[in-house]
C-alpha cells in the first residue's frame, strides 16, 4: 500500500511541478482585465439651440491630451486587449502580450530609472501608423527623432502648435466661433500655454501667400453632420506634428481636425497634408478625451516653462 501511495504521490508531484514553476515565475494571469482601450462613452450628447453637439466643457477627465495624462501606448497606436494580446490600431495586427509579473516594476516608467526610460521610448514608437515622408527626408526624420532631446522644439519652450497639441482641455462654443485652450505644462513636457480662436461663420481662408506662418496657423471651423471640422493652414516650420518621431513639416502643411462628441467623450483625429515633404496625407490614431463632469471644474494654472540644455543633462535614450 505504501508503494502504491508513493507512486501516486510521485505521479502527482510530476504533474504539479510545472504549475508550481509557473506560479513561481509569475505567469499567472492578473485578476483584473487590463486594457488601455478608449473610455466608453456614457450619457447623452447635449446640443446647442442650433442643433449641433455642444462641445463646451473642460475635457481633462481621464483621457488623452498632450497636457493631461496621455496614454502613450494608445497614442502610439496600440491597444492592450487582455493579459495575452494587444493590437495595432492602424492595421489590426496582433501584438504579443504576457501576464505582468507580480511585484516587479522592471520596464515601467514608474521605476524612474534608465530601464523605465528606455521602455517608455520604445513604447511610444510601437504603433505602425507613421507618416510616409518622401525618401529624401527619411534620414532627417530619424536624425531628429534620435536627437530629440536637443531637436524637439517643445524642449525649448516653444508652443506645441497644431496639430501636436491635439485635444484642447477646454472648449467654449458659440454659434460663430470656438475657443480652444491648451494649458502649458512644465517639467519634461515643456510646452507653452496655447489658445485658438476659431471662426465658424462660413468665412473662407486667407490665401496662403498672404499669411505669415504661425505656430497655430489660420483655423476655420465648420460642421459636417455632428462632427466639427477644423481646417488650418498658414503654419511656420517651428513645430513637429506629433508628440514623438521627429515629424517636421513645411510651411505648406494643411491640417484637417475632426472633433466628435459622444456622451462624455470627445474623439479627435487629424489628417496632415504636406505635399512638400510627405508622399501622402497622414491621419493620426484617434485620441479620446473625457469630459470633466464637475460643474465647478477649472483649468489648472500652467507651470512655467524653463529651457534646459538636455543634450548636456541626459542621454539620447531619455525621450
Amino acid at each position, binding site marked *: *500500500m505504501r*508503494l*502504491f501511495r508513493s*507512486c501516486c504521490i510521485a505521479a502527482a508531484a510530476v504533474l504539479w511541478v*510545472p*504549475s508550481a514553476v*509557473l506560479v513561481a515565475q509569475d*505567469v499567472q494571469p*492578473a485578476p*483584473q*482585465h*487590463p*486594457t*488601455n482601450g478608449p473610455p466608453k462613452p456614457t450619457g447623452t450628447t447635449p446640443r446647442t439651440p442650433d442643433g449641433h453637439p455642444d462641445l463646451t466643457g473642460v475635457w481633462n477627465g481621464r483621457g488623452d491630451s498632450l497636457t493631461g*495624462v*496621455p*496614454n*502613450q*501606448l494608445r*497614442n502610439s497606436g*496600440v491597444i*492592450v486587449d487582455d*493579459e*495575452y494580446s*494587444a493590437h495595432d490600431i492602424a*492595421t489590426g*495586427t496582433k*501584438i*504579443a*502580450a*504576457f501576464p*505582468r*509579473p507580480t511585484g516587479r516594476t*522592471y*520596464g*515601467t516608467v514608474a521605476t524612474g530609472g534608465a*530601464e523605465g526610460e*528606455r*521602455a517608455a*521610448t*520604445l*513604447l*511610444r*514608437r*510601437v*504603433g505602425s501608423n*507613421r507618416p*510616409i*515622408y*518622401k*525618401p*529624401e527626408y*527619411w534620414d532627417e526624420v*530619424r536624425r531628429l*527623432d*534620435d536627437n530629440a532631446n536637443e531637436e524637439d522644439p517643445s524642449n525649448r519652450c516653444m508652443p506645441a502648435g497644431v496639430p501636436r497639441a491635439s485635444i484642447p482641455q477646454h472648449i467654449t462654443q458659440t454659434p460663430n466661433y470656438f475657443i480652444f485652450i491648451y494649458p502649458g505644462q512644465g517639467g519634461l513636457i515643456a510646452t507653452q500655454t496655447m489658445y485658438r480662436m476659431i471662426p465658424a461663420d462660413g468665412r473662407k481662408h486667407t490665401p496662403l501667400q498672404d499669411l505669415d506662418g504661425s505656430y497655430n496657423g489660420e483655423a476655420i471651423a465648420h460642421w459636417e453632420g455632428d462632427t466639427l471640422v477644423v481646417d488650418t493652414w498658414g503654419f511656420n516650420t517651428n513645430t513637429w506634428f506629433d508628440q514623438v518621431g*521627429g515629424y517636421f513639416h513645411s510651411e505648406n502643411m494643411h491640417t484637417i481636425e475632426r472633433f466628435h462628441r459622444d456622451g462624455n467623450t470627445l474623439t479627435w483625429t487629424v489628417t496632415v497634408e504636406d505635399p512638400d515633404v510627405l*508622399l501622402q496625407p497622414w491621419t493620426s490614431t484617434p485620441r479620446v478625451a473625457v469630459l470633466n463632469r464637475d460643474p465647478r471644474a477649472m483649468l489648472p494654472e500652467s507651470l512655467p516653462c524653463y529651457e534646459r540644455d538636455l543634450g548636456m543633462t541626459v*542621454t539620447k*535614450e531619455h525621450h
Partner: protein
Amino acid sequence: MMSTKIRTLHIAAIAVASMFLCWSVAARAQGTSDPTNQLRVLRAAASALGMIRMSDIGVTNPPLPLVDVVTTMEISGSGVVYNNGQPMNATYTAAFAYIPPAMRVEIKGQGGGNAAHTIQTVREEYAWNESERGAGLVPGKGIATPAMASAKSRLLQLWILPYGVVKAAIAAGDKTTISTAQGSTVITFPLSGALAGITVTATLDANNFITKVATKPDNAAATDLVYEAEYSDYKDHGEILTDVKSPGRIVQKLAGKPLLDVKTTKVDANNPYLVFPVPPNVKAARAQAGSSR
C-alpha cells in the same frame, strides 16, 4: 505477507507511474504543445531579447501586461556576403519592420561599383530591387525593379531573425511545440499566410537566446526557402541603448550554401523611422501578374 490483491495493486501502480514517466520523456523528445510550457519558453526567449516591457506608460490602473515592443529595427554589419556562391567582403544593413512585415537589405561590396551595391526590399507580397533607398516613389528618383518571385524568400529572412522567430512562434498558437534536443530547448512552429507550408525550428541556449534557426518547406523543391541561420554574441549594440539584445554575429545559409557571415557593427532598435512604401510600378506589376494568372 502481502495479499495477492495488494501485490496486484502495487504492480498496477508501478505500471501507471512508468507509463506516465515514459509518456513524459517521449513528449519532451517529440515536442509538446503544452500551453503553459510554451508560454514559459516563449516568454523566456522574448525576455532574453528584451522584446517585452510593461506597457502602462501613462496608465496606472489597472496595471497593464508586458507587450512586445519590437516594431522596427536596423542591424548593420560587415563581413563576407556570398553573391551567386562567390564570397565578397561587404557591409550589410538590414532595415526591417513587423507591422506590416517588411525588410530592406542593402549590401555594399568593398571596392564600390554598381554591381557590388544591391538593395533588396520586400513588403508583404511585394518584392522589388531599388537603385537607391526609396527608389521609384518619386518620379525621376531612382528605379524600382519588381522582383515578385523573390517575395517569399525575402520575407522568410525577416521571420528567421530572432525577433521574427518569437513573434511567429507566438502567432502560431497551439501549433507551436517545445521539445528538447541535446540538452537545448527547441521551438518548432509552422508559418502562415504567404509562408504557409514552411516549418521553422529554433534552438535556444542556456540563456534563452535563439542560436540556431532552420526552415523546411513542405515542398522540397523550393530550395530558395531552405534557410539556416546562426546567431551568437548577443548584447545591446545600440548607440541609443534600448535593452533590446541583438546578435553580434549572423551566419546564414541558403539551400546549404553560405549566404552571409557578418559581425554586427551597429543596431538601432529604438523603433526607428523605417518605412517601406510600395512603388506604384511594383504594385502595377503585381496586379498585372495577378490578372494574367
